[in-house]
């Protein structure tokens, strides 16, 4: 449906579909609680839906409406929700990995320094594993665990 709207010019800019891959993220996100965080890529519509953002809010955002989850200011690639702990859709390949690592780092910091608790999941594709930032974050995650 999104693809049809895009081809008819009702949706504009970039629209990246997640068709056929929904099972992977849905499985993971089912195991998370509301306070756990998800960081995504530009294929973030399904992640937002799975985490609990209403279908109406996601669709409105795709059409650039003020009723969208980011008031039409983020768009297809930048879905954020503070309530559901979606820390963004990111456009650049690998951009979300360090941000997710930072959110996970915060869980550890909160546990050790502030004595509070929570988890983070980052989604990205296999091509992203070519990206330098991915390895930098693997290294630092092991270093600071």
């Amino acid at each position: 449906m999104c693809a049809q709207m895009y081809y008819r010019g009702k949706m504009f800019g970039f629209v990246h579909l997640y068709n056929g891959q929904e099972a992977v993220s849905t499985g993971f996100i089912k195991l998370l609680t509301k306070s756990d965080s998800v960081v995504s890529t530009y294929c973030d519509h399904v992640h937002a839906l799975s985490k609990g953002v209403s279908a109406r809010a996601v669709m409105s955002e795709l059409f650039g409406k003020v009723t969208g989850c980011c008031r039409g200011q983020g768009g297809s690639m930048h879905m954020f929700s503070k309530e559901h702990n979606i820390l963004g859709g990111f456009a650049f390949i690998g951009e979300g990995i360090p941000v997710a690592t930072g959110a996970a780092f915060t869980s550890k910091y909160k546990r050790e320094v502030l004595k509070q608790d929570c988890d983070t999941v980052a989604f990205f594709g296999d091509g992203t594993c070519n990206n330098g930032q991915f390895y930098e974050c693997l290294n630092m995650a092991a270093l600071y665990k």
Partner: protein
Amino acid sequence: MWGILGRRAVVNGGISASSLRSRVRSSSVSARSYAAAGSKEMTVRDALNSAIDEEMSADPKVFVMGEEVGQYQGAYKITKGLLEKYGPERVYDTPITEAGFTGIGVGAAYAGLKPVVEFMTFNFSMQAIDHIINSAAKSNYMSAGQINVPIVFRGPNGAAAGVGAQHSQCYAAWYASVPGLKVLAPYSAEDARGLLKAAIRDPDPVVFLENELLYGESFPISEEALDSSFCLPIGKAKIEREGKDVTITTFSKMVGFALKAAEKLAEEGISAEVINLRSIRPLDRATINASVRKTSRLVTVEEGFPQHGVCAEICASVVEESFSYLDAPVERIAGADVPMPYAANLERLALPQVEDIVRAAKRACFRSK
């Protein structure tokens, strides 16, 4: 003289003379308190260190991250003693992976912490600029205000001494052009303390541009500035020296040069007003324009490359808002339009010197060609 200004202001629909008077009066009060407390001195390095220390002590969500900030006590010793005092859970030595640790800092800020990320120099921030701009600066807008990013990116900026082209660039103009970022550039120890504390407390991403050559310089510091609750407002410039013939605006190390230039100009009967910008974004256009409306002449100085620089923005602002008050073309003194050379004599030629500022001010006052 105030009468003439008052009439001119009314005729041109500009700022009232009384508001100009009160602005000048308040800046002379601050100049008095600066000099009056002159008995204590502090280096910029100690000012920065004490600011980070006090903010970490006041708020357990503040932590420090960067290369050599912990065990080595900081590449320039700005974070000296912090690892011993707060432990490895709050002072993180990172591998040499700017993109990675900057992104981690931003992610931590999204999730509610207050990172102070150090770049060994801002030249290395280019490896992480995607996170500074796309992940930090733009997120508050893209999320329609849901995500706040209370992060500070700090480190030395601009030329040092003989460090060559890839270690000498000034990033003020680049970062100040981005909506969503705040960009600060301290000069004195008081600036360093007040602005860094304000930056750490600020809910938005702040780029804090220090200067390596200023770290060891001592400045008089008031009792008020030494208090742990001391904070300077972001977006407000400081009039370092009052004058009536020409306005010189600048930031960071060039403030010292501008003050020396003002001394030389005073010997020749030209009274220069020196404005220390302190905040590059938001830029204090009101103070700059009020000063130019008083002096009618502008000389704007920076170390960075000339094209699309901070000086260019100030000239545009003055031409847009105070055109009818100008008695001379606006003068812009910037670094040379060339990658920074290594040889000491060439480096000196590539950066603004006191003589260049004096010459430009005299040109604006029609005392030379």
